[in-house]
């Protein structure tokens, strides 16, 4: 299995997103570096709109992720409810 990852700018907007990702993906590992947080996960990582909305207390459009996104690795699939990164092998 290969690792997928996603990284965000370390800031207040990213904090609830990162919390939601870690809660929904128990196999994910968080790395904090200067100004940046990176989440690695074996095989697959799913980001759920609902989980972010719960923590944020407002409606959230998954495309808002782009604002603080730094980088990704893996094949992406995005719809209204989920943003998924995965390797297909």
């Amino acid at each position, binding site marked *: 299995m*290969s*690792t*997928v*990852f996603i*990284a965000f*700018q370390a800031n207040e907007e990213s904090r609830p997103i990162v919390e939601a990702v870690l809660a929904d993906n128990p196999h994910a590992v968080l790395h904090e*570096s*200067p*100004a*940046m947080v990176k989440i690695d996960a074996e095989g697959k990582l799913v980001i759920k709109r609902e989980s972010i909305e719960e923590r944020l207390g*407002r*409606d*959230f*459009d998954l*495309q*808002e992720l*782009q*604002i*603080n*996104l*730094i*980088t*990704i*690795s*893996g*094949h*992406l*699939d*995005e*719809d*209204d409810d989920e943003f998924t990164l995965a*390797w*297909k*092998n």
Partner: protein
Amino acid sequence: MDMQATKKKVGLKEKYAHMTRGLGWETTYQPMNKVFPYAEFEGIKIHDWDKWEDPFRLTMDAYWKYQAEKERKLYAVLDAFAQNNGHLGVTDARYINALKLFLTGISPLEYVAHRGFAAAGRNFPGVGPRVACLMQSLDEVRHAQTQIHALSNYNKHYNGFHDFKHMIERVWYLSVPKSFFDDAFSAGPFEWMIAIGFSFEYVLTNLLFVPFMSGAAYNGDMGTVTVGFSAQSDEARHMTLGLECIKFMLEQDPDNLPIVQKWIDKWAWRGTRVLTLVGMMMDYMLPKRVMSWKEAWEIYFEQNGGALFNDLARYGIKVPECLSQTAIDKEHISHQAWATFYQYGGASDFHTWMPTDEEMDWLSAKYPNTFDKYYRARFTHWRDEAEKGKRFYNGTLPMLCQVCQIPMLFTEPSDPTQICYRESEYQGEKYHTCSDGCKHIFDDEPEKYIQAWLPVHQIYQGNCFNEGVDPTAPGFDPLAEVLKWYHVEHGRDNLDFEGSEDQKNFAAWRGLATKNV
């Protein structure tokens, strides 16, 4: 600011279909293949352009909304940086030299990327890639502009930031990144996508922005960090476009495989060579280091690139040929490049120095197999000589690689004490390259690479002096004349950091900021 998520009338997938494919049409006054002549020019066979889908499903309306938000956030930071004299907060004024290299060597490439993606968007008949290329083209001009704005704060106070636009066309080491993009832009649209969209954006951009920008944060430069990360936030989309393009070509026709493989091999090597400059910045130009070049290479190229190539294996793609050499080179190239810039510190638009003892200890810990064995003694010797007033400047000009345009500074993969070069013949003339990788690229398209504008050859041919300069006049000083033609002011923009105007000003201004006088 909290973004307002608007209640949707149509779902993302449906909206994407309407706002991309829904906008396309078949031409009738002229046949499609005449309107899009470059789509077939490279031998890539496409049967159904509608099979291309952007997995972000980003449409222009959403694009403007999120990009505007990114800009608002970025410019708030840049204003704060300027208002608070943020430049005095950096760890050490040596760091500012990395920014000079960034502005002169990288920002102009953003602008070429803007033009290249506009051209690719024009040349692809499919609507999906056209919209994605349009967005990337706009992103790239934003990157050029925001980098120039951010670094103009430094131009108010420090030397070397004054004429990047002029320098990219002329200065010897800047021809390395420039020729990389020129090579890609003068190819067809599919090769451009592999060169820039895939190799540069997917495989290599993480190495440029992530560790380097984290390094800027470590060195107290929040303005540059924010610009870098703001640009990088677009990069996730660019990487996805590059990867989608590869998958699309491979899925459309089995005949595309050998062409795509050849481009992957070529551009993985070209990209690796050009990133030597970044490796040098990370290991030598950041006073406070976040990770070594070798560590960044292992995370972002070997592990992440490895995952990618494992995945592409199902299409028959093999890992790029150059991998066995890059595994050796990662232990050497940053040291070899910095040694070269130190020797030619009289001819560059930034300052150079030799690492301190403490920095050398860091380098030997990070490079246990190579630093002490091959580089420490040379660097210590140069430092000692400089202390005795005999600073070593190399007065000769190096031979350049006909392909990557880097001076012959790399060593043989089998012998790190021997300079590596290869020779090819074409139409009765000899051409030299730095490596098997570059020789291979040259031999495949010699008619392209014999046209290279090589700065050293051009100096020897007398093409790099201002008008009216007479190279036969008594006392003619070629280096002084070349520097004038570069717009590099001798004694101010070049030479050692130690004793430079930058060093003195930074120390004086920082003193003013922390003491009452």
